[in-house]
């Protein structure tokens, strides 16, 4: 264990702190560290294959990326993938078809589904009706693992067909989204609430839920 520093000798003289063998002087001091290129050289020496992995990743990922953009381009007529915005908007009817196509091109790993509630609001471009947005993320497995995501905009009460028949992992995630945000999934084997008790009414993660709590939700 480290021991704290030894107390100063004489208060009058400038107490030079005795060098603390554990080097944890007052623990505010900082490890200077090595220059960056020296660090990179040391790591490269210890990890010969690191560069190989990076090339393999970039090559495989570029190939997968090309497949995905091609898929979106031809079958869904979607130009850019709007990665900054979480993926292109896909009509609700073609949601399962896209998932099936992506699974065939190698995106076999089901990552997550995230539903969000967008209440009606008046924006500059005219007032938007209330809507729900369901984003789904899939990932390809192995070197060059790439994640692809797309979004579907739903009117309140509209149902989205479930991915549970395709991916068994989607079962619980979709149940959680139904429980917390209230988006129903068509064809889901047993759509019950996952977190809340079954007789709970209301969906907690909606923007209009529990606004009147003690602490106003938006500080």
């Amino acid at each position, binding site marked *: *264990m*480290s*021991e*704290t*520093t*030894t*107390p*100063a000798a004489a*208060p009058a003289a*400038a*107490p*030079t*702190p*005795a060098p603390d063998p554990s080097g*944890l*002087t*007052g*623990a*505010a*001091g*900082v490890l*200077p560290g090595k*220059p960056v290129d020296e660090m990179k050289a040391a790591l490269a020496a210890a990890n010969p294959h690191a560069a190989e992995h990076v090339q393999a990743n970039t090559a495989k990922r570029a190939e997968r990326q090309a497949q995905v953009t091609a898929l979106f381009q031809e079958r869904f007529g979607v130009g850019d993938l709007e990665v900054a915005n979480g993926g292109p908007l896909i009509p609700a009817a073609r949601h399962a078809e896209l998932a099936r196509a992506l699974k065939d091109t190698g995106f076999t790993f089901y990552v997550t589904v995230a539903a969000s509630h967008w209440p009606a609001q008046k924006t500059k471009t005219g007032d938007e009706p209330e809507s729900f947005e369901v984003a789904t993320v899939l990932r390809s497995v192995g070197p060059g693992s790439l994640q692809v995501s797309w979004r579907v905009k739903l009117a309140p009460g509209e149902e989205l067909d479930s991915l549970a028949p395709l991916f068994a992992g989607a079962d619980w995630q979709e149940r959680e989204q139904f429980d917390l945000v209230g988006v129903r999934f068509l064809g889901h084997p047993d759509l019950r609430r996952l977190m809340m008790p079954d007789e709970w009414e209301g969906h907690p993660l909606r923007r209009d839920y529990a606004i009147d709590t003690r*602490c106003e939700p938006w*500080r």
Partner: protein
Amino acid sequence: MGYLLSTLKSLYATLRQALSKPTTVEFPKVKRERAPRIRASFALTKDAAGDENCIGCKKCEKVCPSEVITVVASKKPSPVTGKARGYADDFTLNLQACIICELCVQVCPTDAIIMVKEQEAPGFSRADLTLTMDKLYKNAETKEKWAWANATVLGEHQKPAEEKKPALAPKPVPAAAAPTPTGAPATATPATAPPATAAPTAPATAAAPATNAATLAAARSPASVSPPPADEKKGGA
């Protein structure tokens, strides 16, 4: 047969562990050595001239994720310098809900609220666990209880690259004049031993917060490899 052989091996393994020294200590009698950076409880500091550091800006109240700090502030003439400045009339910190995330210490502009190394602060009633203002100031009495971090030191650790000025020669602090409460962040010595109370002489760690800023800046500059010996300026005592 395999069962018997590996049973003997397991027995041998436990025998070796049984013969080695146990790692637990009898806790109440023997205290375990904690790290210098341990974050346990809180304290409010006073500056060199004995004036309260806290100016009642309520930044800590806003930043606290679990909303345990409540501050009642007002403008009053300062008993030491006579000028009117902000003071906290009532500062309560409810330790029951505090998650020790150290954000209040970080955002405090005048290094008023700091953490102390006190190992554990057991409370036998809810009132014990609500740190009122006098408890907070009493916590700051003995210097070696101070933890390592206050806003300046934490700020030093997180200073982004471009603002890294070379290590300034530390501005000699005139013993008499009290540094202005805001205090220039880089070099002012925010807190030294209060002259009024017969505080024990400042052991090395006590001076640590004062010299840390300088040694840190020095240590940070790539040129110097080993931190320089503690600079000549000592907190006035």
